[in-house]
């Protein structure tokens, strides 16, 4: 059949086109699996990873799901294991999602570790942390209280309700408020999934139902634009302090318009760099010292042998004044 043949040709062409992606395999490979592809945050991690790969003489593989779906992520990890990629790092969507593949990785002597979002009890080799969950949760609350006052009412807009790293940060925010700021009211977190319009809708509703709201925290980087726009659209610039864990490039326009008072983040490309570096150490079987400055990085990182956490450093706070000094 003519048409059948056309169809076959189309698929063949698609496969042929993909050969360009097929990789040479003489160098050791370090893979990173993000929670979702196509967002600036993980893009920056990819770039950092590529830099590190070039510098350290390994090959970097970047593969992630299109939706924040743990099964899709698992499928990707499983396929990387099948390919025999020597070290695989995952920003886990769900703390228990690695369980089925941990054994498979061990059996093939593949170093499976986490980066950016952890699965503590999974048996992973180590966890490359951007900053401690506690530090992130505490910092964003401390900075918020500085701006909104010690008796402020603060709302939280998160992304996927299933994301374990985001939930951990929210947990520390709540803990900080309970312990240090008894007069601050922290509203229950609301979840917008991955979409900016839902985040804006929820943030708008939140401001309407709480006219005395002083601040909104956008927990997922995907919710930052929505929250900022909601504050701008509601004409609440100055009255409500917006913030979130988002990169200077994402937050720049909002920091300048005043919708965001500040933004808390680390340099994701540095995190990507450190991830690949850690993968290389694991492949080479080297032990990581308690404090060291990895080749190609400008500052030292710390490693806790007991918890297996490799810490990038303290989170940075970006404001309208310093945001132009950064480009990521």
């Amino acid at each position, binding site marked *: *059949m003519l*048409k*059948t043949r056309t*169809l*076959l040709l*189309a*698929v*063949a062409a*698609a*496969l*042929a086109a*993909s*050969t360009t*992606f*097929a*990789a040479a*395999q003489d160098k050791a490979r370090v893979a990173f699996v993000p929670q979702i*592809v*196509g967002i600036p945050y993980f893009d920056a991690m990819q770039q950092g990873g590529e830099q590190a790969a070039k510098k350290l003489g390994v090959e970097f*593989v970047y*593969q*992630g*799901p*299109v*939706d924040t*779906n*743990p*099964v*899709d992520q*698992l*499928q*990707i990890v*499983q*396929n*990387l*294991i*099948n*390919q*025999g990629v020597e070290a695989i790092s995952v920003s886990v969507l*769900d*703390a*228990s*999602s690695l*369980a*089925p593949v941990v*054994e498979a990785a061990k059996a093939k002597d593949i170093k499976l570790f986490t980066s950016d979002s952890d699965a503590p009890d999974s048996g992973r080799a180590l966890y490359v942390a951007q900053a401690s969950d506690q530090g992130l949760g505490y910092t964003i609350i401390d900075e918020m209280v500085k701006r909104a006052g010690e008796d402020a009412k603060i709302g939280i807009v998160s992304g*996927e*309700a*299933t*994301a*374990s790293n985001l*939930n951990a940060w929210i947990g520390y925010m709540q803990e900080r408020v309970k312990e240090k700021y008894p007069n601050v009211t922290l509203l229950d977190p609301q*979840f917008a999934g991955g979409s900016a319009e839902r985040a804006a809708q929820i943030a708008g509703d939140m401001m309407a139902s709480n006219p005395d709201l002083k601040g909104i925290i956008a927990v997922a980087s995907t919710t930052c634009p929505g929250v900022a726009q909601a504050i701008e659209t509601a004409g609440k610039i100055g009255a409500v302090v917006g913030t979130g864990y988002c990169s200077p490039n994402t937050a720049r326009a909002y920091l300048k318009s005043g919708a965001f008072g500040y933004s808390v983040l680390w340099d994701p490309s540095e995190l990507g760099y450190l991830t690949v570096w850690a993968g290389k150490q694991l492949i080479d079987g080297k032990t990581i010292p308690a404090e060291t400055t990895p080749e190609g990085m400008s500052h030292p990182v710390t490693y806790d042998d007991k918890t297996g956490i490799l810490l990038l450093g303290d989170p940075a706070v970006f404001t309208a004044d310093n945001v132009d000094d950064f480009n990521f």
Partner: protein
Amino acid sequence: MSSRTSLTLPILAGLWILIVAGLAILQPSAMALSTVTTVLQFSTLLALVSLGQAMVILGGGAGIDLSVGGTVSLVAIIAMLLDTAGVPSFLLPVVCLVAGTLLGLVNGILVTRLRLLPLIATLGTFYVYSGTALAITGGSAIGGAPAYLLPWGRGTLAGFPLPFVTLVLPLFVLAVLLLRYTAWGRWIYAFGFNERSARLVGIPVDRARFIAYGFSGLMAGLAALVSLAWLGSARPNIGQNLELTSLTAVMLGGVAIFGGRGGLVGVLAAVLLLVTLQTGLLQLNVNTIWQVGIIGALLILVLLVDNIRMIRRTA
């Protein structure tokens, strides 16, 4: 109907061989038993759900089940909630089957008793089931699936994942036999193809259709059980996107969207083709977004080929 099924399978098989051959050339290391295991492992949930979806669609009356993904998520959550609440864990499989069937029968009632259009009814239950699963857990997974399930969920037999060998294959064989050799199976085709005549000759259309929705729920319940045994925890969004992928698999497998035509072998072939394609692209490290685009284009192309053939025949 026979001419259609007979052409669907060669097309799917041809495509499959093409993908495997392409992979063998571009990435020889992928030709390993572990790849087979992976493909089947990730086919299991989709195959089970697609089997139920296929039954519902075959039964006609604009039959469709958009709630399958939500059902998988909700059943997994219900089962683990009951388990942690102290229900004996050996009952967990039963809970999954019963809960799945009940949720499916709710669709059956909405469609056959309340006479809601299936698309509307199951769009409604899609929202309700998937939403409830997320809302009652606040989004977090419930860990601690009974340990006795894990060896089955993660085990393999000569490289074949146990859930695939013990559930998917027997169920598909059983369902094919059921459709081919029992009155019930012939009814499904009959009223799927021409409902009015089927009613006139006294086939209990509503009851059979009611059962078909229950069956779809049962399959979703089984998928939930497999997910528990495999992952070791219940995830409130485990069934995410399954409604659309199962629909894709069923259509690709040669089942007509309006019912009455198509076979289950094609559906299983389509599931394997889809997962092989995904695996192949992953092995070649092609960006995952291409999977979404290629699968979409494939669906359109295969139906286009089919249409042109039909027009030629009728012309």
